[in-house]
């Protein structure tokens, strides 16, 4: 049911990756910080419609990368390539090379189930399971066998909820259904659920779009804290948020990645005028 076409042509084999790394090594772009993930020429088609037109993006280890850009430009699509979530869309077709720790994630040897345990995701729309709050968090650790007993599981649940800033609100009603929470609480529950399986990379698709400023601040603190150990990619429409939480920012526009760089540079000194227009609010 996967629609991914792993063409295996020489242009996108490991040979080209090696060439890319060589090229970067030559320019010194790779100096010091290793890249957790790396996308090369990623194209996505929904049927005949092309949503991404060849994205090259490096995602450095233990940093927050923000994806910004107007609605419909392909940010979510790109994010969903990073944990092969697009496999589940029948008409979606992914081309190009994406690596995790240097390994092609679309390789036959990579199991998408394992990949998604390593690359977790918080979706654009909150989607808690119609189960109890506790089970929402415990589900992932349970299927991966992360807790060896009831106490350990309780601890994982409590810690995950604390990190997502939801603990105080739900600690007395862990048995109630997760779907009974407010929209913003549900989103934090989904963040806690993603954190609970301790992935290496966490993909967040507008995690704060339904949150009030206090909860947003919570989540931003969480992101800051997670950055010590995790690699984070966050899509946001909030420029201040991108500036506050991210170290690197990529600007997407109509399926292209227009510009990527250190967040400070992008916001103070954008090279492309489309970027400038967008971040200053002049873009429609």
């Amino acid at each position: 049911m996967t629609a991914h076409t792993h063409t295996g042509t020489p242009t996108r084999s490991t040979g080209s990756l090696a060439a890319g790394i060589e090229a970067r090594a030559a320019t010194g772009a790779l100096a010091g910080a290793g890249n957790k993930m790396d996308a090369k020429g990623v194209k996505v088609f929904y049927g005949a419609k092309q949503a991404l037109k060849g994205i090259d993006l490096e995602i450095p280890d233990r940093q927050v990368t923000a994806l910004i850009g107007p609605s419909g430009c392909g940010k979510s699509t790109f994010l969903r390539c990073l944990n092969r979530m697009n496999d589940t869309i029948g008409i979606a077709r992914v081309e190009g090379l994406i690596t995790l720790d240097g390994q092609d994630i679309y390789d036959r040897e990579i199991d998408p189930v394992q990949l998604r345990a390593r690359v977790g995701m918080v979706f654009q729309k909150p989607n808690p399971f119609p189960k109890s709050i506790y089970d929402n968090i415990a589900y992932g650790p349970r299927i991966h066998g992360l807790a060896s007993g009831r106490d350990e599981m309780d601890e994982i649940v409590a810690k995950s909820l604390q990190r997502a800033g939801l603990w105080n609100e739900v600690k007395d009603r862990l048995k109630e259904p997760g779907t009974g929470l407010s929209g913003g609480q549900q989103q934090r529950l989904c963040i806690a659920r993603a954190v609970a399986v301790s992935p290496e990379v966490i993909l967040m698709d507008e995690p704060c779009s339904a949150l009030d400023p206090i909860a947003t601040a919570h989540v931003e603190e969480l992101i800051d804290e997670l950055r010590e150990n995790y690699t984070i990619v966050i899509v946001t429409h909030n420029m201040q948020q991108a500036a506050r939480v991210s170290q690197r920012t990529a600007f997407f526009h109509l399926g292209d990645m227009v510009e990527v760089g250190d967040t400070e540079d992008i916001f103070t000194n954008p090279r492309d005028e489309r970027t400038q227009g967008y971040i200053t609010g002049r873009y429609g």
Partner: protein
Amino acid sequence: MTDIISDTPKAAIYQSDDFAARLRKRYAAERRFKMYGVVAIGVALGMLAILLTSIVGQGYTAFAQHDLALEVFFDPAEIDPQGSRDPAVISNANYGALARTALQAVFPEVEQRTDRRRLTSMISNGAAFELRQMVIDDPSLIGTRKQVRIPLASDYDQVLKGNIDRTLPETSRKVTDQQIAWVDKLVANGQIVNGFNWRLFANGDSRDPELAGLKAGLVGSLLTLMVTLGLAIPIGISAAVYLEEFAPKNKLTDLIEVNINNLAAVPSIVFGLLGLAVFLNAFNMPRSAPVVGGIVLALMTLPTIIIAGRAALKAVPPSIREAALGVGASPLQVVTHHVLPLAMPGILTGVIIGMAHALGETAPLLMIGMIAFIVDTPGGFGDASTVLPVQIFMWADSPERGFVERTSAAIMVLLAFLIGMNAIAVFLRKQFERRW
């Protein structure tokens, strides 16, 4: 202040009489629509009430039946002249004679042979069997006198229930004035008693209405449905899950989908023909057997369950699947942990509809020989058997007056069976819904 500019508030329009009239019309339309709905439901309920009252009104009397309460002498000379107590001898004795003697003892004045024969015709053919069974169960009865209840022939039961009108002229009813007088005397003596008709549930079919029971049909229906459920639920749900969650979307699966929809519309008798051709003729499976009936009915209900199951699976929001995949669940875990539990109420609805359909089905079962006259309760899936709806069909076809009330009673039993089954399914559905 002219109203040429289009983007001014339309206050004037919304407060005009014209607008108020339009609003009234809209409300009137809504009221009419609601009225149609109420009328439609009212008509449906009325029909249902008429159906139920006619069935219950005709059938409730069958749940009680009149018996003869006679003092029977278990005459050793008749049962076991040699005193050997040999079971073979005991079971071959003429027990009808014991019953006849007991009844004649009540009416010593009846002496003519034809009169005597008329008198003893009040005793059902079943009396001999029941007396024999008593003696076989307890041979010490031989040589004793005992007050026993033996079945009264159906026509007299019908007279007492008022189903045969005694005010009619003698020639236009099956029972003579003399026989009615005997019955009345027995009632006055307290030698005819009315009680719960346990034979309706304890006996198999019979030519004699007073002995005919539903046990063979009930057990046959139960066995058949067990086979149907056991096959249709796992196969139907697996097929629905595979087609909806795993199968690639291509021409072949499209074709399969179209054909499943077509199968749901195939007349049930065609499935019976299939059963006859494949299971009986090609595979040599037993005729009239619940296992074959169950397979045929399972084939018939599969499309219903698959279609309902797929609709229920499709209704589970994709975001739930993504959420589970996102934390690293495998596709099968996504289905079994999340999608299937959420789709279960809808799937069960399909199962209920399919099973209700299967329980009431007759036509395909006729094709595979389940229209047999079954006296003995089937003991297994391979035994000759019948099912409730076929039993109803056969009783409805019988000319005796006593079968009229029994037919309605059998329909009531079938409906109770159906309601019971649905109640279980609805209960299960509620259990699953609570998990949301």
